[in-house]
């Protein structure tokens, strides 16, 4: 069971449907295996229900119900089944081409490899990172916020030790130096605030963890 959870702010925004982006995928990936956050989001959804209950009414076009009736017997859209890969939370699975052990990692440093997830947008930049067993990354600070979800292995920094399922938010005030545990590589799903002006700098290319 996870020890580090998304903030209540994030869980409320998630339940309100206001995170249809990489951060939403990460929150959903954490919730899938966290009973505590499931319980909270159930209540936050109930608040959404109550708000709908109490909202004012807006007149609806009289023809609308007829239109709906005429479509009930149409064939539903075919849904492509969601792939299921070992070690990948289901919310993330549609954006992966295989299980964790088949990822085509990229990167120059031996201690740190990365894989770009196709869910980055002009707000968030999303990647998977692999820190080799026992390796330490250079100490660094962040520009903007960084969110991390541990998918496999463990890592630690000066603020704590993180295990599978832990959701860690760090802001630009924090300097940290992640280190993977000695017996296995650590794979994380990571998101950074990524305003368009900050992407693709040379420095980032050299060391994706230093921003």
């Amino acid at each position, binding site marked *: 069971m996870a020890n580090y959870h998304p*903030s*209540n*702010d994030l869980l*409320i*925004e*998630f339940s*309100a*449907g*206001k*995170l*249809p*982006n*990489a951060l*939403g*995928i990460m929150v*959903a990936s954490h919730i*899938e295996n966290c009973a505590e956050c499931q*319980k*909270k989001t*159930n*209540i936050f*959804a*109930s*608040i*959404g*229900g*109550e*708000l*709908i*209950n*109490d*909202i*004012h*009414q*807006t*007149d*609806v*076009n009289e023809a*609308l*119900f007829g*239109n*709906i*009736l005429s*479509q*009930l017997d149409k064939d*539903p859209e075919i*849904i492509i089944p*969601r792939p*299921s890969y070992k070690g990948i939370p*289901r*919310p*993330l699975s*549609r*954006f992966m081409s295989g299980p964790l052990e088949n990822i085509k990692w990229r990167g120059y440093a031996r201690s740190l490899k990365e894989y770009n997830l*196709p*869910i980055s*947008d002009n707000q968030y930049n999303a990647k998977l990172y692999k820190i080799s067993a026992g390796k330490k990354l250079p100490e660094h600070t962040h520009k903007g916020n960084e969110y991390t979800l541990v998918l496999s292995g463990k890592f630690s920094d000066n603020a704590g030790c993180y295990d599978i399922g832990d959701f860690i938010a760090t802001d630009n005030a924090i300097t940290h130096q992640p280190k993977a545990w000695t017996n296995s590589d650590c794979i994380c799903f990571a998101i950074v605030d990524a305003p368009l002006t900050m992407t693709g700098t040379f420095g980032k290319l050299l060391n994706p963890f230093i921003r």
Partner: protein
Amino acid sequence: MSEQSSVKLNPLNQLVIKIAESQDRVAFKELFESVSPKLKSYAMQCGSSAHEAEELIQECFITVWRKAHTFNPNAASAITWLYTIVRNKRIDLLRKTKNKEFVISDDLWPEPETGCLENDVESDLNQNIARTLLHGLSQEQRQIVYKVYFEGKSHSEIASDLGEPLGTIKSRLRLAMKKLDSLAKENITWLIIILVTTY
């Protein structure tokens, strides 16, 4: 026992159950008439035009018809179930029209893998907590919660919307939560704690 029967007696719950059990079009119409004007307000509050709002309602009710059998009154009350449908459809319609977002609602809330429904989570309890919480709020405080849910506003955006300092917005909610704390100690204590720390 009383909890069981209150779950069954909830009129919206009954309508959805009738639709699920016997494809009851009378119940379907009744549900449509009681809920669609609210769903329309929700959609427009979220930024849809009147036309888009009705498209959203249409999608929602087609889903209600097809998925009524997945409604589990022990897991969530009908109004919360409907809320999650409209919330999800809104994301999917936005994605279709803007044609650039990649996330679909099924990524965020995947259908249960095995098809087995979550076993009796305390739906009634959740709804009561939510109701107690909201009804204990002043008009001003409720407006803030409403803006987070329906307009996706951050606290500082809400402050500028309402022409109030951020500190005022935060303290309004904090006061509301204190009031609630004395209303219902056991069940919602943790909710109060988190809301106080959140806002």
